[in-house]
């Protein structure tokens, strides 16, 4: 006790006694070179401030294998082999690999590693670093965050010259996104020795050494400042010379800073965005592309009588007015979803809107819902009582459910909303201990295949009472499983056809009822900064919490005043 008290006193004295030194603001520091760009079309200079509420102060750790901090290092400091753009048909941008070659049955891939790249501590980046990164995941499974060695069947990774060869047990095409796009490559000379090698999953990594466009300098609990890496391998980039990433503990101040233009890159929900943000300045813009579904998950297991009845699920899907839910529950900021399970318009070319319309799910149809319910033996006089579980704190979901409850009531479905603490909710959802759940998966991929596979593949489910991976509704359909297997080896055109067949199962079996589409929250200010991703030029997912997409945004934006 005494010790801490002394420390506090010392702090107070320190505060009082030093009135004549000058206040250092992060923005006062001499900004990096404002010299003309060497090759790029834009000159360098300027600062971007990110407003992405975390609800915590920064731990100033940057270990790319630690999932609670890797969003602040992957893409900023650490780079992947290839960037895959989920918003633009999987368009690929070579990063640390200049190219790659699959073998015929796609069980082996050979990356050609870029030459002339330096780590930001001056050492040369080589193919050995790439092989080291993947082999580290084998040695320390806690770092294998995408289950490449266990799930994807990775067998070996070797480096020779500027080539890295990865060999898999089976066709690995559908895991390309995970190992090429999602893994940040780390330096062997840092992670191969000392504390980092001893505990690579937990090591703090306070001064990350990466190949990326920015370096951390300095980090305080309240703000991370990144400065441009002068020896970045893309000459003349990044244009922006500095990033401020303040720690916002609450949405309120984060939104205020966005509205005032103090922060220019927003990645969070702003309630009443028209008044609170857009109306404040003509330079404020928003574009939040939908990426995944938020759905009502009926328990398909026969032990849950009502929700395993097809007519009941069909009635729910027909009765709910998704547009109204999106308009009221999500304040119009998330679009309504559709029963096919394909997020539109993001994945428009996969979306079989005709099939949805043919099945009558393109608009709410209460009378059809009433008939279906009657066929299952329920009516307003003999109401179906259902409980839907949701997560406390997700007030937009609470609001959406309040709308759904109101829509279902006249049909004879009496919905009880059960708000649970996150952990309790997860335990029930994962173990299949619920009738209805309101939930959205949090990971997708560059095509609808990834979300649908998580949602529907029987490999991702488990018996009631055991933890399912992602198929929480317990849907099992061998035909759909076969389609997923075919997809891996199919040509891109065939893949579209396969997805549409899977959509047909979504429409016919109604295993899950998509309600709204969750979006990448994105607000941007164009007063000084240009080059943001837009619907016309969706070169990357725009939210700052997407990696490695954030790197692409940072490499595109530039300061108008520096030109």
């Amino acid at each position: 006790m005494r010790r801490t008290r002394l420390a506090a006193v010392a702090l107070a004295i320190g505060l009082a006694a030093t009135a004549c030194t000058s206040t250092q603001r992060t923005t006062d520091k001499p900004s990096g070179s404002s010299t003309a760009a060497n090759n790029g079309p834009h000159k360098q200079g300027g600062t971007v401030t990110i407003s992405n509420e975390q609800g915590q102060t920064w731990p100033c750790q940057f270990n790319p294998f630690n999932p609670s901090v890797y969003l602040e290092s992957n893409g900023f400091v650490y780079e992947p082999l290839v960037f895959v753009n989920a918003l633009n048909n999987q368009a690929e941008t070579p990063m640390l690999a200049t190219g790659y070659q699959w073998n015929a049955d796609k069980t082996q891939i050979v990356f050609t590693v870029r030459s002339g790249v330096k780590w930001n501590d001056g050492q040369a980046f080589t193919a050995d670093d790439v092989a080291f990164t993947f082999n580290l995941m084998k040695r320390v499974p806690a770092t294998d965050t995408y289950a490449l060695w266990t799930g994807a069947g990775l067998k070996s990774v070797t480096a020779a010259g500027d080539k890295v060869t990865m060999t898999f047990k089976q066709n690995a095409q559908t895991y390309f996104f995970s190992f090429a796009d999602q893994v940040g490559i780390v330096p062997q000379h840092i992670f191969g020795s000392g504390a980092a090698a001893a505990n690579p999953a937990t090591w703090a990594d306070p001064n990350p050494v990466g190949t990326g466009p920015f370096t951390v300098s300095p980090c305080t609990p309240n703000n991370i400042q990144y400065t441009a890496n002068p020896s970045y391998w893309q000459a003349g980039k990044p244009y922006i010379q500095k990033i401020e990433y303040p720690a916002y503990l609450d949405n309120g101040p984060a939104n205020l800073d966005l509205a005032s233009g103090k922060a220019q890159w927003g990645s969070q929900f702003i309630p009443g965005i028209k008044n609170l943000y857009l109306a404040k300045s003509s330079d404020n813009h928003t574009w939040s592309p939908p990426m995944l579904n938020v759905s009502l998950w009926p328990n398909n297991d026969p032990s849950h009588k009502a929700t395993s009845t097809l007519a009941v699920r069909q009635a729910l899907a027909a009765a709910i007015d998704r547009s109204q839910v999106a308009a009221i529950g999500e304040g119009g900021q998330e679009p309504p979803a559709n029963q096919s399970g394909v997020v539109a318009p993001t994945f428009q070319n996969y979306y079989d809107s005709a099939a949805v319309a043919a099945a009558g799910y393109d608009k709410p149809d209460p009378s059809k819902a009433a008939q279906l319910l009657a066929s299952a033996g329920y009516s307003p006089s003999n109401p179906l009582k259902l409980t839907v579980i949701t997560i406390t704190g997700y007030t937009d979901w609470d609001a959406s459910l309040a709308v759904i409850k109101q829509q279902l009531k006249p049909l004879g479905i009496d919905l009880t909303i059960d708000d649970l603490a996150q952990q309790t909710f997860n335990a029930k959802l994962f173990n299949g201990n619920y009738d209805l759940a309101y939930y959205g998966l949090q990971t997708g991929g560059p095509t609808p295949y990834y979300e649908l596979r998580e949602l529907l593949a029987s490999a991702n489910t488990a018996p009631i009472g055991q933890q399912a991976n992602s198929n929480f509704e317990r849907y099992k359909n061998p035909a759909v499983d076969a389609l997923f297997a075919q997809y891996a080896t199919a040509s891109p055109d065939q893949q579209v056809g396969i997805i549409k067949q899977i959509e047909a199962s979504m429409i016919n079996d109604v295993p899950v009822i998509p309600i709204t589409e969750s979006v990448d929250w994105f607000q941007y200010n164009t007063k000084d900064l240009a080059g943001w991703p837009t619907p016309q030029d969706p070169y990357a997912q725009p939210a700052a919490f997407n990696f490695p997409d954030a790197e692409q945004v940072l490499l595109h934006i530039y300061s108008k005043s520096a030109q």
Partner: protein
Amino acid sequence: MRKHRSNGFWPALRGNRKAMTGAVILLVFTLVAAFPGLFTSVRDPNALLSPPSLQPSGAHWLGTTSLGQDIYAQLVYGTRQSLIIAVVAGAFATVLSVLIGVSAAYLGGVFDDLLSMLTNVMLVIPAFPLIIILSKYAGKGSLTVMLAVLVATGWSYGANQLRAQALSLRNRDFLESARVRGERRGYIIVFEVLPTMTSLIVANFLGAALYSVLSAAGLQFLGLGDPNSSSWGTMLYWSQNQQALLTGSPLWSLAPGLCVALLGAAFALINYAFDEIGNPALRPVRTNARTRVKTVKKRGQRVQRAESQ
């Protein structure tokens, strides 16, 4: 002694302006809680009936929430739960205080040691952090869970006070005479001791009720209650989540908070008036007249404890 009290007490209370103010507030809230239908035409306060985020108007006295619920109607229907929490948690906590405090004093010996140890431990353990942990892990903040948590953490202060007073009464003449008459211990406690402690017990109830109102509102505000229930704390939680202060619906936040404050003030005013009545020296005076009084109960501290969390 008992007779004297019950005769002198209520008239004194009626004459006390603070007590009357508190009582009127309490009465109004009780009426609203009992007959919400008389105060608003809305029947389901959570129904999404209206356009969102309306400003106050004739149709919606306090405007609507960002979901289109009538704020005034929510306020009216929220009264019941807040009042129930205050009264029920306050009452149960008081009963527990009486049971533990008075038994400790009268059983004496090992029992007293154990019970007062328990009381002191509970008194010292920081209650609000404990409440947060408890209600978080109870999974969801249903009314029962909240009441249980409030009672479990709210009895110790009163038990300590009641034990002290019961100890001081133990050797008084009228109890001695009861013992000489050969009455049983249970009879003495219930019919002789408790009535003389009425004023302290009532004061404890008021203090515990105040503590429950504030703590429950704080818990619900933090999101540890049931977000679909109708109560003032829940309204505060929703308005905070929807950033009512920033998005131009400040009344959504301010009105339920004011109601919590009024209800709390009502309990506090009546409690303070009790102090004044029990201790005539404290009564408001116009002149500098002084009355000699020997004992002062430090009841103000109860408030402090409830809040210092």
